[in-house]
């Protein structure tokens, strides 16, 4: 071994030893996820465990049961994939809001416990903000208007006067919930989104469905009832088929989302658009939002699928940002808050230009 390679190896070890790592725990709904990410934003490992209901939607008790059974395995796998020990972690971050109470509690309890045992700081993170922050990191985007569409949230948000302000949101059910519910009605198992998208491609005609945009807010529950009626009608299978219904549902819901996005874009004058959340995987929606972004000369980015859905890496990264700006939370500040809105939270790290 010559002199140079020793220097390089030394340099490498210094880098490895000096790197600071955060452990992000995501536990708001069906996904229990652990991500390990370093303080510069490199994801070292990410392991997900998803609850898939046999029938119906997410029953909090059953989800909780599965997460309680699996969380140590997921944690250990994330650590072994990163080839580190739990003692190498410098910061714990977990999702404290919004989500299902019993499930948020598991994440909070595990995180507090780890933080006490390892004597490292803990940071409580808002799930919706984490979605935006990981998008900014992964897409190298500065100041986007974000359309966040998932099974639990439908929010159009942008950063203004110190907060992620909500410009538009759903007044009743989220769009992901709409698609999942429709999928269940036609007997498609969870997750229904990708299959509904496939069905819609074979459609031959559009059926009129209610289109409800109130200012910048959206309402999907009437749309859901109308599709349900279409499926129960005696014309179903004769005058139109499942492909047409899926197509009409998607076209209507996505046109509503795109219209509101465009309004928010015109209103805020942002030059970047970020599409994130589970429904962001839908190509049709991507196409439509891309279209309006282009019309307003805004750069359009979709968060890579791995980081668009619920994941621990985004929690870890947001935890890092908050930790760098204001330090860790004291234990009494790590209460869960299942119904916290993202516009209630100040964003200290954006002011400093991180």
């Amino acid at each position, binding site marked *: 071994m010559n002199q140079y390679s020793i220097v390089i190896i030394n340099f490498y070890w210094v880098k490895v030893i000096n790197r600071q790592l955060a452990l992000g725990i995501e536990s708001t709904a069906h996904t229990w996820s652990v991500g390990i990410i370093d303080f510069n934003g490199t994801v070292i490992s990410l392991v997900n465990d998803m609850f898939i209901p046999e029938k119906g939607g997410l029953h909090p008790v059953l989800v909780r049961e599965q997460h309680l059974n699996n969380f140590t395995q997921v944690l250990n796998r994330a650590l072994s994939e990163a080839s580190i020990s739990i003692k190498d972690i410098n910061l714990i971050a977990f999702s404290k809001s*919004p989500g299902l109470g019993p499930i948020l509690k598991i994440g909070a309890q595990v995180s507090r416990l780890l933080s006490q045992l390892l004597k490292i700081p803990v940071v409580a993170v808002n799930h919706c903000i984490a979605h935006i922050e990981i998008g900014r990191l992964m897409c190298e985007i500065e100041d986007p208007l974000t359309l966040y569409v998932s099974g639990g949230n439908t929010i159009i948000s942008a950063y203004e006067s110190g907060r992620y302000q909500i410009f538009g*949101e759903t*007044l009743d059910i989220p769009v992901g919930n709409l698609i999942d519910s429709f999928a269940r009605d036609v007997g498609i198992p969870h997750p229904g989104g990708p299959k509904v998208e496939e069905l819609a491609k074979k459609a031959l005609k*559009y059926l*009129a469905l209610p*289109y409800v945009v109130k*200012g910048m807010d959206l309402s999907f529950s009437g749309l859901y009832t109308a599709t349900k009626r279409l499926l129960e009608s005696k014309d179903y299978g004769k005058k139109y088929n499942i492909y047409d219904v899926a197509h009409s549902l998607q*076209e*209507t819901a996505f*046109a509503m989302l*795109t*219209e509101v996005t*465009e*309004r928010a*874009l*015109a*209103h805020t004058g942002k030059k970047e658009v970020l599409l994130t959340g589970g429904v962001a995987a839908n190509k049709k929606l991507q*196409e*439509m*939002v891309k*279209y*309006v972004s282009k019309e307003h000369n805004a750069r359009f980015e979709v968060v890579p699928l791995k980081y668009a859905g619920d994941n621990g890496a985004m929690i870890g990264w947001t935890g890092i940002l908050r930790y760098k700006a204001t330090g860790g939370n004291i234990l009494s500040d790590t209460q869960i808050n299942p*119904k*916290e*809105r993202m516009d209630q939270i100040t964003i200290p790290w954006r002011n400093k230009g991180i």
Partner: protein
Amino acid sequence: MLEEIVMEKIIHKGAEANLIYGHWFGKEVIFKHRIPKGYRIEQIDRKLRVNRTLNEAKALIRVKKYGVNVPQVYEIDTKNSTIIMKYIRGKKLKEILDSLPNKKKTQFLREVGKNIAILHKNGHIHGDITTSNIILTETQDIFIIDFGLHDYSDYIEDKSTDLHLFKRVLISSHGNDFIICFDAFLEGYREGYGPEKIDECKQIIKNISIIETRGRYVKKEDRI
């Protein structure tokens, strides 16, 4: 030959429609053209544009009856989803409100409140009362424009929602003088609603604070 209908220049590009300045049989007009949107399919696009154009034009014509200052509609072109209406020469309240002396501010906001009350009293909901949608002419008259989100309703809830939106706009765009502005607005509103329906008016104003506590994810204890 005299050209009867001339579109001259686009003066505003909205998310939904373009406003084009021009002339129509010698009159100064605005063409409000709802543009086709390429992202949605033809059936949705057509239906939305035609319905919204017709609804807006109908509303503009109907509220004229109550003496509210709105642009005169000259022609409705559903084929191109365009409304041709009178051009109102003046400034948006948004642009000038902050530079006005307090006395003028309260005077104009009272006037706005009065006009909105007349709309509400007769079952018209504007749907998008913002300071950008109020024009102050050179003759110091208030004009209310953009009835794109107009709706008909006699529910207290809908009227309060309308006022709540205006309150939010005042807070976010004109925060410094919010209190005097909104107080003057409400004063005008009460005046416009008239003494015979004073109970309803009180309920509407009271309901604004109820709406504020009701947003998604507001604590159960705070709900009324």
